[in-house]
């Protein structure tokens, strides 16, 4: 009982409860048919939201006003860069992935440069950066879909006993991210800056360096995500990252990370990403129309955030 209460006190548990409820509702509707397939589909699709969600989580944790709105454009450009470098050739997969990572890191670093050197608020800086990135992408990719090499597409779609390989790798990555957040100096510094930037600075945290690293990390994860998306969906295109503007922020918030910064957790990102995909599964299975689906998605997200935020403030 005590352990249950301890579990319920975790801010991230609500996103998993939400995901489980939505899944149960869908399976009840279909009479138990297709429950396993739904989880496989949810895992394969949630992976992409988790990767950018973790990047966004670190940025948001830096404190009020910190957010990376350039992720969709970043994903689009990196997907094109990765596919062009790979050029349909299995030997170039690693090089293509590195190119996408480098592209994302450059974007992240440029974002921080705008924020730091020109003192532009992060929202404006990353949003205007995304216009520039998108224009580069359009002239670079000419709006064409560029196909991945067969080996990379197979890898992105591979499953072991119904569990996507990408999901397993992403679980390992998120465990690493959780350790970095809670146990390493870098993560503790991010939390400290988010709680009080001045106090963190006085305590000797190199605020500028940590913020630079965080925006670069978010950019790098966006770049990686772009390459993986292009592999999974078999083609890079400008719009491939569009939905991750809202989704990356939503999973952070639903997952129990504080929008005000200074308080974060990694498991919640997984729970929230699964919740969002299963929600789409449920509404598609129920056969509601597009308008009603958007309406319900909005209402349910508000509901979950309210439930998750219901706990007493600790300070």
């Amino acid at each position, binding site marked *: 009982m005590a352990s249950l209460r301890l579990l319920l006190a975790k801010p991230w548990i609500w996103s998993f409860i939400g995901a489980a409820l939505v899944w149960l509702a869908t399976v009840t509707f279909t009479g138990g048919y297709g429950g396993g397939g739904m989880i496989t589909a949810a895992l394969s699709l949630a992976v992409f939201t988790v990767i950018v969600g973790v990047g966004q989580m670190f940025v948001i944790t830096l404190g009020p006003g910190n957010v990376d709105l350039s992720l969709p454009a970043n994903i689009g450009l990196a997907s094109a860069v990765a596919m062009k470098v790979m050029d349909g050739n299995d030997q170039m997969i690693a090089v293509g992935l590195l190119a996408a990572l480098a592209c994302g890191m450059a974007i992240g670093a440029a974002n921080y440069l705008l924020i730091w050197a020109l003192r532009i608020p992060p929202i404006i800086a990353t949003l205007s950066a995304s216009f520039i990135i998108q224009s580069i992408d359009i002239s670079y990719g000419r709006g064409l879909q*560029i196909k991945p090499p067969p080996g990379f597409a197979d890898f992105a779609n591979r499953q072991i006993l119904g569990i996507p390989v990408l999901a397993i790798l992403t679980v390992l990555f998120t465990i690493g991210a959780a350790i970095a957040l809670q146990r390493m100096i870098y993560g503790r510094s991010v939390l400290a800056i988010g709680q009080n930037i001045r106090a963190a600075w006085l305590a000797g945290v190199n605020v500028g360096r940590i913020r630079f690293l965080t925006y670069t990390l978010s950019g790098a994860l966006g770049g990686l995500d772009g390459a993986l998306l292009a592999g999974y*969906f078999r083609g890079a295109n400008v719009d491939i990252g569009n939905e991750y503007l809202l989704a990356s922020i939503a999973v952070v918030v639903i997952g129990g990370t504080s929008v005000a910064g200074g308080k974060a957790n990694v498991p919640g990102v997984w729970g929230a990403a699964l919740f969002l995909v299963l929600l789409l599964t449920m509404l598609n299975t129920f056969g509601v129309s597009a308008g009603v689906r958007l309406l319900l998605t909005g209402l349910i997200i508000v509901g979950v955030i309210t439930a998750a935020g219901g706990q007493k403030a600790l300070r």
Partner: protein
Amino acid sequence: MKKLLVLSALAAMLASGTALADTSDKKIAFSNNYAGNSWRQAMLDSYAIVTKKAVADGVVAAADIFTTADKEVPTQAAQVQNLILQGYDAIVINAASPDALNGAIKQACDAGIVVVSFDGIVTEPCAYRVVVDFKDMGKQEVEQMAKFQPKGGNLLEIRGLAGTSIDDAIHAGILEGVAAHPEFKIVGSVTGDWDQTTAQKAVATILPSLPEIVGVVDQGGDGYGAAQAFAAAGKPRPTIIMGNRQDELQWWKEQKEKDGYQTWSASIAPGVSSLAFWVAQQVLDGRTDIPHDLLVPYLAFTQDDFEAALPKIPKGGVASHEYTQEDAIAAIKANIK
């Protein structure tokens, strides 16, 4: 007497139907609100090919292309106002909204500028609308499906961008087709937004709960994504109607070579932009008999001719068709009842 002269002149004009006023000194602008996908790129390419030749041949003085990047209505409204000030004689427009631009369009008409909209049409009555017969396309999809799946069965429908006239028209056509073919039943419907990624995601989420599907009826741009989703879920491959994208036709070709897979492909040709250009040119030419609403055919490929078209489509692009002045005159004629 004078009245009679005017009337007979008018009659002569109607009879001949072409080249009364000279358009060689006319300037036509193209206002476009987005360029970020393969369809829009092909649309711009087709337009550029046709208009470059028209300018070189001296048919018109200028045909300039103006693209705003962000799909936003206010940006395009401002752009149209700029084009009015720059003194263009006609504006060909792919509009960001069917009604929100009407104010700017009306200003253009009042300034004596001919406005021809296509794809993203405007409802302002003074403008011309070049519209593809999407309802018939939806109906044809089910007709074709009946040929490939004579026994009938369950269908999955992939819808386009919610709230657009195109989505409504294709959907209505599909419903009409299913009503005429009661052996088919639509058991699931998802929104694919004419986008491969969105469609694949939507189909992947609904597939586990669906019974066996014999066919997928869709709106173009979503067929390849649907095929990927079926493969990823380990479900048998249904008959998927395609939408003229290179990757869709390429996939079709691979399946055909493997086991004689049959399907059908249809979509609005991006080159309809060039048709809109010629319509504008015809109006500037002095023709007054052109209906403001022009219904034009869609571009379809069948089992027999899609492989011939495939090499001509750029990798990752979409099949297009450049229309000629004669095509435009024929299309106008078909719409005069």
